[in-house]
């Protein structure tokens, strides 16, 4: 087990898979290249991708050894800058120079590498090598030089597939944390953009970064996030989802308590509103904290469109959210229990279409909703261009056939289609998924107690969101507790020129977002 944690060395304790291997290597550095390389080879279990290269400095000089993992380093950089410059420098050394002096000279004047550092422990050397650095040993000294030469295959920066916009920047995060950080920095050239770095995962040792703007975000927020993240002890952190599930306030809640995004501009807009962004190496998804219900109904595009359009779309999205939760449940309640509430003519036409249907309304509704969910899941698994089409076509065909066969009524197909389409308008995939769960619980309530059940379920839902706190912020904010200034950007989106204050939700230190430059 490697116990270097949170960036500080706890204790040198490298142990490889049980006891019998433990004696093969020594936990120390040697003063000869040969011994060091042997030791590292034993420690790593003689992997095939471990490359060692010995170069002799000058005709009588000491030998130096380069050790690195083959696919993790940039070979071109290593060949052209490191090996060439070591081989070409033999004249610069006096024959009687000590190994330490040569080492210093290599580090300070010869190697053309921007980022290099000394290492003094085997822990340092091995762990850095696994991150793509090259270790340089020199005969006659126990010091090791670590050269930053990472280079591996990477995806290009592409548009974020889960958060597409019509208008707005098209770049999305990728799997490399350094690139992701640079994407944020490119959009926010603020010296106050501060970074806290952590390492999570006792085996995967993933780099995790908390980003925040000092002077806007509350420092307590960053401290608390750091405390929570550093308390995680897991094997691997494959995705931000792992971190999200470890640090969220309530694991019983159906709602996402951290916002995930693939879009740098969304991360930046979170940052300037006093929120913190968590990046994890190896995933294009960043987390934004804290988050409330109202954040999940906002699309980043809302800030780019003009305000009447944005406001209209936001209202539309709220209505869609309500439809996608309540509509099937209302259908069940009205058809099963409260025929009287439907206007007489409509009631007759519904009754007419339902005449041949052998099932009660709730069976019909569950059947169709499950079909819809299955289609949706199938659509995700299929290749991208076909997926959506198959989903929709499948839905239409199945719906049509089910009506023809007299299994469901046409009005049920309308209900299911409207529900599904409404839930697709949600800008956040995680939130849309939790709405799906809610929909089924409302349907269950309606099945048993009709409209009474729906209302009780709604009350229970309200109790839940008012009791749920995300880092101390109630999930129902800014509606309850009411922060009227924040309502400018809740259901409506006011003209940007009127939103001169930052949202009060996160209690930002610098409260002014924008102001008019005084005319001279």
């Amino acid at each position, binding site marked *: 087990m490697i116990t270097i944690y949170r960036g500080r060395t706890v204790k040198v304790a490298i142990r490889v898979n049980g006891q019998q291997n433990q004696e093969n290597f020594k936990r120390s550095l040697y003063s000869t290249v040969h011994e060091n390389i042997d030791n590292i080879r034993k420690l790593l279990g003689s992997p095939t991708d471990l490359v060692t290269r010995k170069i002799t400095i000058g005709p009588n000089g000491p030998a130096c050894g380069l050790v690195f993992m083959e696919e993790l380093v940039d070979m071109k950089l290593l060949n052209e800058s490191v090996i060439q410059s070591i081989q070409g420098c033999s004249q610069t050394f006096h024959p009687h120079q000590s190994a330490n002096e040569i080492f210093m000279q290599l580090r300070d004047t010869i190697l053309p590498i921007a980022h290099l550092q000394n290492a003094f422990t085997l822990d340092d050397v091995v762990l850095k090598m696994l991150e793509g650095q090259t270790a340089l040993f020199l005969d006659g000294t126990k010091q090791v030089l670590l050269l930053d030469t990472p280079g591996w295959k990477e995806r290009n920066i592409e548009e974020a597939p889960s958060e597409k916009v019509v208008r707005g920047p098209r770049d999305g995060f990728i799997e490399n944390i350094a690139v992701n950080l640079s994407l944020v920095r490119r959009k926010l050239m603020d010296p106050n953009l501060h970074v806290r770095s952590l390492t999570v995962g006792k085996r995967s040792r993933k780099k995790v970064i908390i980003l925040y703007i000092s002077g806007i975000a509350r420092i307590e927020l960053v401290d608390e996030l750091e405390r929570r993240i550093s308390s995680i002890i897991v094997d691997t952190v494959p995705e931000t989802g792992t971190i999200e599930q470890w640090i969220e306030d309530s694991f019983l809640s159906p709602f996402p308590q951290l916002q995930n995004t693939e879009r740098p501009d969304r991360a930046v807009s979170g940052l300037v509103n006093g929120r913190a962004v968590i990046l994890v190496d190896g995933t294009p998804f960043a987390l934004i904290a804290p988050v409330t219900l109202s954040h999940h109904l906002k699309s980043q595009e809302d800030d780019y469109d003009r305000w009447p359009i944005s406001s209209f779309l936001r209202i539309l999205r709220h209505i869609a959210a309500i439809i996608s939760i309540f509509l099937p449940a209302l259908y069940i309640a009205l058809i099963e229990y409260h025929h009287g*509430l439907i206007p007489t003519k409509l009631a007759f036409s519904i009754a007419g279409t339902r005449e041949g249907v052998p099932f009660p309304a709730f069976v019909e509704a569950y059947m169709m909703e499950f079909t819809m969910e299955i289609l949706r899941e199938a659509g995700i698994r299929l290749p991208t261009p076909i997926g959506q089409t198959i989903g929709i076509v499948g839905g239409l065909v199945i719906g049509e056939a089910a009506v023809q066969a007299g299994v469901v009524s046409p009005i049920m197909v309308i209900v299911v289609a409207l529900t599904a389409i409404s839930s697709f308008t949600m800008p956040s995939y995680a939130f849309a998924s939790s709405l799906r769960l809610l929909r089924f619980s409302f349907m269950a309530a309606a099945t048993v107690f*009709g*409209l009474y059940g729906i209302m009780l379920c709604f009350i229970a839902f309200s109790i839940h969101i008012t009791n749920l706190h995300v880092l101390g*912020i109630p999930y129902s904010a800014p509606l309850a*507790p009411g922060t009227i200034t924040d309502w400018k950007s809740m259901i409506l989106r006011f003209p940007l020129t009127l939103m001169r204050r930052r949202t009060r939700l996160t209690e930002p230190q610098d409260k002014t977002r924008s102001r008019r430059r005084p005319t001279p």
Partner: protein
Amino acid sequence: MSVYDYDQIRTTDIPIIVTTMQLGVGILTLPKIVAEIMGSSDGWLVILISGIVMLGIGALIGQVINRFPGQSLLSISNQLLGIWITRFIFLLLALIGLAYLAVVLRITGMLAKLYFFDLTPIEVLILIFALVIIYCVAGLRIAIMRICLLFLPIIIGILIIIFLFNLGHMRWDNLEPYFTADWRDIVRGTATALPSYNGIIIFLFYGYLAKTSPKIPRMIMIGTSVVITLYILVFIFSVGVLGLYTTINTIFPTIEMAKEAEVPGGFFERLQSIFFAVWMLAIFTSGVFALDISTMMLESIFQKVSKITWILSLAPIGYFLSMIPRNEVEILSMSSWAAIALFAVAIPLPIILLIADRVKRRTAHG
């Protein structure tokens, strides 16, 4: 661990909370009770006068809260009235809260049976309602305040819809003759209408959650004014739409009035069911307050017993109490007795506290 500080009631939220506290079962029967006593449309005058009296009480409640910011009613009362009087009053309040809970449960069950399910046994309907109330009370106290904030727009929204769609059915001659009541009727009517505003006292119990501000009394009064306006409108619309005679002879004239409303576009018929469905939110908050105050009182007298134990032992008692009345008349009389008891015990509380405070300070100085 929380980073942000959201565990206080904001000053601007107080009117909304105070309004929600007062809306509940009372408004459903108010037109009937007032019209019965007054025998004319002058009931609105009575509602207004009793409302103004309650505005005064509201201001006093605000003063008590301002005088002892952040202190629970227990500590205020212990300081001013002594431990034993406090315990006695708290015990009474806990009992009254329980009675209120029973009334709320029973009326909900009754209405749900009336408007939604004629076959489902009322015990089941009440049971699930009580379970949701328990879920709410078991949560945070500040969350209850937030629920008020979430529900009030919906509650007032449905009232406004009912008023708007009833404008066409409003017959102004139903309201005539005006100003016929003599002063004795007005005094008796005021006495009857006063307990409708009982809910205002609830804020005294939750005052310790409020953020310190000199505006608290004003905010309580704003909330109460909204209630007065709604009560007067409900009364006028009931009498105007249903006529005086029907108003007196229906148990829940407010819901009956909602029945008359017609939504243009014909999307909903029988608006009274929708009205009741939404009004469940208001009734629910009353039930929550009843159980929570009972719990709070007993919790502060017997501090060794945990909150959840009290909730789980009080709620079944409330449930069984709600089964006692045999018919609607008994429910209503139980309801009015609970209201009168609360009015007699709790409403004088801010006055007593302020006087005791004055006396105590005077003796301390002298």
